[in-house]
């Protein structure tokens, strides 16, 4: 049961990683990268390391996504100014 869940999550993570590379829209890529971190944190939790899972969920999928979004906003704003 548990190995099946982990393999399933891993397959979704790989798919999300390819999606993050091949999406045309940068916004969609950022969201896909956040999904990878969120699923990784679920895997850490299943494997019995709640400390790492908390770090991954809060930093990897929360803060990094937001910082990427802010950076994207700034880059777009800089372009439109020219």
């Amino acid at each position, binding site marked *: 049961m548990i190995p099946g869940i982990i393999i399933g999550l891993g397959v979704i993570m790989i798919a999300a990683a390819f999606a993050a590379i091949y999406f045309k829209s940068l916004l969609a890529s950022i969201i896909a990268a956040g999904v990878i971190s969120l699923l990784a944190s679920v895997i850490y939790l299943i494997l019995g*390391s*709640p*400390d790492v*899972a*908390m*770090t991954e969920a*809060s*930093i990897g999928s*929360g*803060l990094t996504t*937001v*910082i990427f979004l*802010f*950076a994207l*906003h*700034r880059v777009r*704003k800089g372009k439109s100014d020219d």
Partner: protein
Amino acid sequence: MIKKVVVLLSIIGLIAIFMPMITQFQERENLNELATDYVNGSIHELGTPNVVTSVIVTYRGLDTLGEVTVLFLATVGVGFLLKGKSEDKIEISASELLETTSSVLVAMIMVLGIYIFTHGHLTPGGGFQGGVVIASGFLLMLLSNVNAKMNHSIMHFVESLSGFAYVGIGVTGLVLTVGFLSPKILPLGNFGDLFSAGAIPVIYSLVGLKVGSELTSILVTMGGEK
């Protein structure tokens, strides 16, 4: 063409390197010597139920100090490079839904963050996780109130004070000859109490405050001043 061949070759090389990890994987039955020492030491010497915290704060305390320093340098770099020119205020305001929800949620998120870092030695989590949770509470505040101004000097004050106190605890350990960053400068207390495990909760609370204020200041610098 050559680029694709190189990419393919490097992928095959990586598979060849990591294949033994799957094929020759053996699950360990026992902890190795160092891990046994850490697990016994964290319970009998330091009185910390959460072994991860005792490793991060005490056995690998110098690494944690280094991590905190790296985070500090990253914050300084972001602040230096993105010194936002604060332009005129934006007219748009956040939606009513977000404003109402955040007025209830922000306080709860802050309390959760403080809980995570003060109970770092008892339950999973600790200074870094709690700090990030606090920063996300500030982020919600920032998103719901677009024209809010964060007081940078208070954040810098909290950050420098907690960093200074962290190093101060380390040096106190040297003065009392129990070792740099050793938690034994305070009494160990009862196993499992909130105020136990020596200076570990103090150190993790300081790390939590420092990480929280640093990440908040990164978020404010990057997103607040549009």
